[in-house]
């Protein structure tokens, strides 16, 4: 049975019929319909069922205040819970009606979603009369204005159909070059400093949109001023069995008639607490709805409205209320019980239009930090104290500010007729949560009086509609139960988002490879061509190991390690952080930020350095090369490059601005190939025939500029493996060429490419800690056995450096601090697990707590050591060499012996080849 009127409905285009599928059945509609208006037009009264009660539910509202009519969209990418009142129909749309909860569509959503940032002098939220007016005003001085409106077209719902003035204003607004109008855009959050986040639905209604067009967009708007013109949400009145299909908000019912040409019912009772409900009754009557009764809880109504209704043969019954309803065989409304003048009368109707007043939509104002107050004039909560940040004003205008029409009589603050109702289990305060007056009374009985507590106890107001319609009403009912003024009870806090936002939209284009930048070196393509597995080190992608055909990690690493220990290996070391320090005072500066002494470093030389925080704990290590009188190159660990630069700049800028120092990151400027192993000198000699590579001419911890192959290069003689080794730096454009040249020159020497895993094994065999792996911010240089890195001269002369004072604190010199040690399994074969806890040998692991003596920081299978080998931090570790302990992982103990952390070449004899 169609309930579409033969005429009317400015929002629908009767020349464009549309068919949608509801639970598989075709439903006829017009372009411009919402699914709700289409369902009402099709005479489908039940659109959902109660989540817990299963009771039939119908369309109640017009937009975001709708508590019942949620559907699961099953066409397109699908969406679990969408309000029928906000779902634009289009051919191909298919939905399923829901009983309370939707289901996340399974499978990948490959639809595009994107983000966009924009700035404005004024953001106007809401495109009704007040918003349009505010936008025109704001645009007058040429500033940028953004107007976001959640409807298809501007104009809003406010004063009935679009007046000619508003039409003209909208048209003017849309021609202004400094105004960006965003229809179908819901502002979901208003945050600090004029930041708003909004969801734009770009192609939901356009199934013909190609796949590369983003379906939705998340806007990040930064505005100097925000105007909230979000209007008001109509609230119902409550009574027993108030949840039946056919109980509709009166204003919404009138809008369905006027804007969509749809009759929500044929015989109606209208019940209201304010003039708006009476005007809605007039609209319904004018459209041909038979008004059986019009009730107003107030004792007096405006004579004008009463007279107009009288022309339709209707007398307004004041002081009347609805006491209950009955359903027909279809579960929808069939009868309404009305009490008037002390008697109960029953009417056969299919529509009960109720209106308890308007709730100004203060959510965004409230999110931004504005405070509301109860207004008896409006019978609602209205903006009171604006958000405190006067530099980013938030102004509320129109119905959202609680404005009434000049000719209106005050509404009544009327919520429920009988708070002690015997039928409280059927007086629904939150239909979506199936929460009732009985639940609220139980909360009160449990001693809860705060609206925030009652909300959480009862779940009222926590569903997707966030209590837009019923929330204030619940506050009113609670006030009645508590016998306190509504304003004292107050509202719950509004928090973003105003409307649900999908994770896919929040992610936007930050998906897959774009989710986090992947940093690659200039040699990356060579590694890809070699098919190496990569390891992620922060954002960097580094070769992990370089397997031959069929090799696994362990086999590959054994071969790579052997090559470096006995022949020569090559590795891409480009990711090390590099910072140029320039200025006359760099030496003095470095003396203050490193534990060692650098001002005495000669041009051409390199020194290892340890950096502590002011608390004396190791934060980084690396090398410092003096490139020129006033130019130095600091290297950092791969993961710490940014933090070290930050720290250097902070000390220089905030504590010692008198020093002439400046820093420039050059990490990406240089491609670096490490050539390590006893044959590395031969390889370098072959690559750079003009460079004297003898130990005498080019000693350990020196650097030389040279032509390597045909490339301009800087060669540093430093070692992270204990072997004779060089790092060859070239401008990164030549990185791949350098890799090729080293590989070619190394071929006669059997050069072997190696990755980060081998690098780690080689350094561990030398007891070189990795900051961030073997340290955790609680480790001093002394704990690492690196007291030698603290300049004795600085200590002798009492020179300060960052961390120096802390290293003298009693806690820093305790002999029982955790100290770096080596571990080997006593059986020579059991693997030791990184992260394992160290406990006394044979400790009873069931006798809790088990005293923990330390933990394993690095563990490898070491060919050089001849067994698994681990580094660990152990209480009093340096005095425990030779002791046996258990290293426990997942309750499995491995018996280990504490050994020196430098099992390989402790004399350092191999670094000169």
């Amino acid at each position, binding site marked *: 049975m169609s309930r579409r009127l033969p005429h009317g409905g400015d929002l629908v285009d009767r020349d464009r019929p549309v068919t949608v599928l509801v639970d598989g059945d075709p439903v006829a509609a017009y372009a411009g319909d919402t699914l709700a208006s289409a369902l009402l037009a099709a005479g489908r009264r039940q659109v959902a069922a109660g989540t817990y009660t299963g009771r039939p539910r119908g369309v109640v509202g017009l937009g975001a205040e709708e508590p019942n009519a949620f559907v699961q969209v099953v066409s397109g990418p699908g969406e679990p819970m969408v309000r029928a009142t906000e779902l634009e129909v289009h051919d191909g749309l298919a939905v399923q009606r829901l009983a309370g909860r939707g289901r996340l569509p399974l499978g990948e959503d490959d639809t595009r979603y994107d983000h966009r940032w924009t700035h404005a002098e004024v953001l106007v939220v809401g495109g009704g009369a007040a918003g349009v007016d505010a936008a025109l005003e704001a645009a007058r001085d040429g500033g940028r204005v953004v107007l976001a409106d959640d409807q298809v077209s501007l104009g809003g719902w406010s004063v009935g159909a679009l007046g000619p003035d508003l039409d003209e204003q909208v048209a003017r607004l849309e021609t202004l070059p400094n105004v960006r109008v965003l229809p179908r855009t819901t502002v979901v959050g208003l945050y600090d400093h004029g930041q708003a986040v909004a969801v734009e639905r770009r192609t939901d209604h356009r199934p013909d949109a190609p796949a590369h067009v983003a379906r939705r967009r998340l806007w*990040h708007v*930064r505005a100097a001023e925000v105007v909230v013109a979000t209007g008001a949400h109509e609230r119902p009145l409550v009574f027993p069995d108030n949840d039946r299909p056919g109980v509709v908000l009166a204003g919404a019912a009138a809008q369905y008639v006027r804007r969509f040409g749809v009759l929500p019912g044929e015989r109606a009772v209208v019940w209201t607490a304010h003039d708006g409900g009476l005007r809605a009754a007039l609209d319904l009557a004018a459209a041909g709805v038979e008004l059986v009764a019009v009730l107003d809880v107030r004792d007096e109504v405006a004579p004008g409205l009463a007279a107009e209704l009288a022309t339709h043969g209707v007398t307004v019954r004041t002081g009347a209320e609805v006491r209950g309803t009955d359903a027909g065989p279809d579960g929808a409304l069939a009868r309404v019980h009305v009490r008037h003048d002390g008697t109960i009368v029953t009417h056969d109707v299919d529509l009960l239009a109720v209106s308890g007043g308007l709730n100004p939509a203060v959510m965004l104002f409230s999110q931004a*930090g504005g405070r509301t107050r109860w207004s008896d004039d409006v019978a609602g909560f209205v903006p009171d104290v604006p958000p405190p940040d006067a530099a980013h004003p938030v102004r509320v205008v129109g119905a959202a500010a609680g404005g009434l029409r000049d000719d209106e009589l005050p509404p009544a603050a009327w919520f429920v007729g009988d708070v002690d109702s015997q039928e409280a289990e059927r007086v629904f305060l939150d239909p979506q949560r199936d929460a009732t007056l009985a639940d609220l009374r139980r909360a009160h009985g449990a001693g809860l009086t705060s609206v925030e507590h009652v909300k959480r106890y009862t779940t009222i107001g926590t569903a997707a509609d966030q209590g837009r319609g019923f929330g204030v009403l619940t506050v009113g009912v609670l006030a009645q139960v508590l016998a306190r003024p509504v304003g004292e009870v107050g509202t719950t806090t509004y928090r973003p988002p105003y409307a649900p936002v999908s994770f896919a939209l929040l992610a936007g284009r930050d998906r897959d490879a774009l989710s986090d930048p992947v940093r690659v070196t200039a040699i990356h393509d060579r590694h890809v061509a070699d098919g190496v597995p990569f390891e992620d080190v922060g954002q960097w992608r580094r070769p992990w190991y370089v397997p031959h055909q069929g090799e696994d990690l362990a086999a590959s690493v054994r071969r790579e390690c052997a090559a470096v220990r006995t022949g020569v290996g090559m590795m891409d070391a480009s990711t090390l952080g590099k910072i140029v320090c320039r200025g006359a005072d760099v030496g003095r500066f470095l003396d203050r930020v490193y534990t060692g002494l650098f001002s005495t470093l000669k041009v051409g030389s390199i020194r290892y350095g340890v950096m502590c925080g002011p608390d004396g704990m190791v934060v980084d290590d690396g090398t410092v090369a003096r490139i020129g009188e006033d130019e130095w190159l600091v290297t950092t660990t791969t993961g710490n490059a940014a933090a070290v630069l*930050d720290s250097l700049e902070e000390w220089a*800028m*905030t*504590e010692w601005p008198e020093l002439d120092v400046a820093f420039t990151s050059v990490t990406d400027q240089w491609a670096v190939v490490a050539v390590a192993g006893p044959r590395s000198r031969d390889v370098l000699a072959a690559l750079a025939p003009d460079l004297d590579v003898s130990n005498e001419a080019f000693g350990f911890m020196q650097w030389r500029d040279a032509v390597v192959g045909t490339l301009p290069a800087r060669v540093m003689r430093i070692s992270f493996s204990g072997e004779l080794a060089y790092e060859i730096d070239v401008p990164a454009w030549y990185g791949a060429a350098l890799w090729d040249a080293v590989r070619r020159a190394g071929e006669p020497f059997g050069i072997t490419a190696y990755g980060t895993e081998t690098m780690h094994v080689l350094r561990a065999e030398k007891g070189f800690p990795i900051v961030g792996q073997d340290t955790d911010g609680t480790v001093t240089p002394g704990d690492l056995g690196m007291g030698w890195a603290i300049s004795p001269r600085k200590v002798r002369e009492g020179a300060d450096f960052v961390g120096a004072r*802390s290293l003298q*604190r009693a806690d820093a010199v305790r002999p029982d601090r955790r100290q770096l040690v080596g571990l080997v399994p006593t059986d020579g074969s059991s693997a030791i697990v990184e992260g394992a806890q160290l406990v006394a040998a044979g400790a009873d692991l069931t006798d809790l707590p088990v005293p923990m003596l330390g933990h394993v920081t690095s563990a490898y299978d070491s060919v050089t050591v001849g067994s698994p080998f681990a580094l660990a931090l152990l209480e009093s570790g340096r005095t425990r060499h030779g002791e046996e302990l258990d290293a426990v992982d997942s309750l499995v103990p491995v018996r280990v012996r504490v050994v020196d952390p430098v099992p390989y070449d402790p004399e350092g004899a191999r670094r000169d080849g």
Partner: protein
Amino acid sequence: MMSLPCPHCGPRDETEFGYGGQAGVAYPARPGDLDDRAWAEYLFVRDNPRGWSTERWVHRAGCRQWFVLRRHTVTHEIESPA
């Protein structure tokens, strides 16, 4: 997301900045002269006001300059210090 006024680059999103804690806590001129308690005070103890806080920020993703501003820790109102 706060918008912070970088004195050199103008207003930028908070994510471009690093927070440097309470302003005006200078590195002691002679740390060696401080006893353990006074040194610990410098290292670890900071005001934690509910209200106006004078604090250091660095425009890390921009000009990399450190600067001081006043921020209200409840309302996030921001003032550049006089």
